[in-house]
């Protein structure tokens, strides 16, 4: 059962992206944005959190498509 391997940098990205998002969601990063400031009336920290969230979804979608192209799958046993 040798799967065709995706490009190594894609594999690394699949690990790095969630780790980076984890860092961005954790203090002290997220605390930096917990200031009484707003953009268009929406608090900065809310925009930051949902922004990182949306970016993560987009990146994961892009990565999943690239990784899926490698055809890594086995039929149900």
């Amino acid at each position: 059962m040798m799967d065709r391997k995706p490009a190594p940098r894609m594999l690394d990205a699949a690990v790095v992206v969630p780790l980076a998002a984890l860092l961005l969601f954790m203090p002290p990063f997220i605390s930096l944005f917990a200031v009484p400031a707003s953009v268009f009336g929406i608090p900065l920290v809310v925009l930051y959190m949902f922004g990182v969230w949306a970016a993560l979804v987009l990146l994961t979608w892009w990565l999943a498509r690239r990784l899926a192209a490698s055809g890594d799958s086995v039929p149900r046993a």
Partner: protein
Amino acid sequence: MLAANLVLAAALAYVALLFGVAFMGDRRARHGQSRWLQSPITYTLSISIYCTSWTFYGAVGSAARSGLEFATIYLGPTLVFAGWWCFLRKLVRIGQLHRITSIADMLSSRYGKSAGLAALVTVIVVAAATPYIALQLKAVTTSFQVISGSGPAALAGFYSARPNFTLAFWIAAGMAVFTILFGTRNIDASERHPGVVAAIAVEAVVKLVAMIAVGLLVVVGIAGGPAEVFARMPAGMLHSDSVFGPRWVAMCFLSGAAVICLPRQFQVTVVEIGDERHLQTAAWLFPLYLFLICLFVLPIAIAGLAYLPAGANPDMFMLTLPMWAGREEVALLAFLGGFSAATSMVIVAAIALSTMISNHVVLPVALRLPWVSLSASGDVRRLLVRSRRVSICLILLLAFLYFRLSARFNPLASIGLTAFVGVAQLLPCLVGGLFWRQATTRGAVAGLAAGALIWAYTLLLPSFQGELLLSSADIAAGPFGISWLRPHALFGMQGVDPLVHSVFWSLMVNIVLFVAVSLTREPRPLEQLQATLFVDVFRNDPADTSRFVSRSAAIYDLNVLAQRLIGVDEARRLFEAGGRGHDPAPDHPVADDALITELERKLAGSVGAASARAMISQVVTGETISLAGLVQIADETQRVRDYSRQLETQSRELADTASELRTANERLRQLDSQKDDFLSQVSHEVRTPMTSIRSFSEILLESPQLERAQSERFLRIIHEESIRMTRLLDSILELSVLEGGGSGWVLAPTDPDIALDNAVGICRGLSAAPVIQLVSTPRAKGPCVMADPDRLSQVFINLLSNAIKHNTAAAPQVRVASVLREDVYELTVEDNGPGVPDDVRARLFSKFARGWAHSLPGTQGAGLGLAISWQIMQRLGGTLELVQGSARGACFRLQLPRIQAQGALRVAEG
């Protein structure tokens, strides 16, 4: 407000719709028309049972109380799914390959198929899930009361009113019926429930739509824009100092652990997955779903705090806000959304828990009880189905009791978090099991048990606020007044949030014990095998298992066992497939390892690995696990080394074969040319006598008046030439017989010196002139070699006659010396003739070489003598060679191995 009957009718209609969807889903799956059911979208939607009524109502409540903290519950799962490549992919692959039926089965399967571990996990998750299911009952009951109530009490979300327990009971009963109908219809090999998955996918859509509808109503309809909503935000709601502290980190971690370890999440993510590739879609689609669910939570919470009367229950803002705004249809939709969230969670959780209880508690006990008969076909299936139905009822009853007991306190979120900490105890041994080979059953049990006890002591029991086991005084001051045992300040750790406190202590003790106990002892063989199969799941073929486990069982017994569990038809299919390539005939009544392994895998698919192993063990004898093989595949460097060693050996073999082929080819060429030489030599040798015979017989024929003396001379020549030709042909024949190895010689202990004396006597008559000088060591050697005396004489005569005939010296001399060495008899024959020319030396012993004969006129002999002698010596196991003698003449050395008869040797040396 809405009439209670209308709400009830709506709820019932909705339930009827779900029944329909589940029924259709089951039917389509059975007929194989499950394209929509098998899609990655359905898979992702089914995972969204993560969002229960705790999300639907509780997230808003949590946001109203502690701002952004609600988001942690969704950030953890988002990160876990975004990191699917690292963890979930492996989990799903293992689940598929090993036909895992639940999280308890996963852990027990990894840890040597331990039944005890499976039971322990089952107990922990049931303890953790009961409050969680109770929470759903509470949410549905309260929401029903709110939406069908009226006046300020309803708008306040019935904060202090007594819940309607009758209603809650009937809700629980309804859920039990639905779960039993669609969750325990069949015990099939795959343990999948397409109907249920279809229903919860629909519910996932309903709750998302309801959430967004209420959100849009609030942001657009009530407040008039996002900025306006946030303008009404109470000061400091988002910026309290404690939000992004340890509690934030702990909750992100807990939610991430929960989305893996919660029994219902494991059920939909790993067990119900139709195709591993669905995970690639869920990896981003599920985070997107969570994102959309969370988007309006904060605005709704702010609006609730701003518009509703002070003191209103924040957990019910989802309902009370539309009611306050007079949008009853939105309120009804929100109610159905919350109802969906609750029912889908309860149904899947009940299925997962009942599967675990039946597989890991009921069945192992039944297998041990002598009076429970499980011998007839289908008995085990019946037992499983019944025990699952009973456990579903029991789980919901338990949850109902918990709800009654704890109804007066605890907001929704805190009940959910209690459950999260409970299931998070499974994480260390799950992660350790997937990535750490050394993890053992004892380590897992020790870590789990200790972690669960600390969780129960620091979080679960205190949540009853003194009503169960621990009194209020104990919680405040510690049991028996021992202050360092206070549940919320263990070992004097004070000033920490109770949740963080419990997470810290339970998981730390859990991990430390898990690692430490694992390191105390080597894993047992079965643990090692399973560890290798799990850790190296992407490298090893699971079919290889049978390579390492060797055991035997009668086909008949296996067949009976299979029929008991998976039914007659399925069993026959399995054995027919398993019998292919083997021999299904009755004279081969013993099953091979591959068939036993396949059956165990099949059984594990419905009763779990531990029970399957227990059942197989009843009919199997002589199980051994090859540790050497395991170590070999476990060690990466070992694998690489083995591989390169194999390559080296192969290339060396190839090189050897090639050089052998080259040598053989060279030899064939030589033989071919020798054959050609031989033929031309033979023709030449035959042609000379033939020519003289022909010419002399022609003279005789053509001259009848020839003198008698003349004709007699001619006839004598003809006669001599005929003899010479016959001798030549005889020699050729003899040589070919020798070369073919075809003659049957009788080898006997022989004294070579007697044969030598014989030969010397014969050769003395050849010529008077040469002096045969015998230089002999003491003669009485006795029979010291194995030989045929006549053949040996033949060789000696040949050597001596050559030495005499080809000797052109003025005073010809032949020196013969024999000596008996340590292990050989050695004879040298040396003459003082011209010696052997260098160019002849190499081919001296080949046919027609006649070394130095050509240079001499009138010599006799066919030139086969040396070739024949050499062949004879070969046959006798000796050697014949030309060596450098003391003079310039030729010197032949003959060697024969001594026989190892001790007596003969002693005589010879004495």
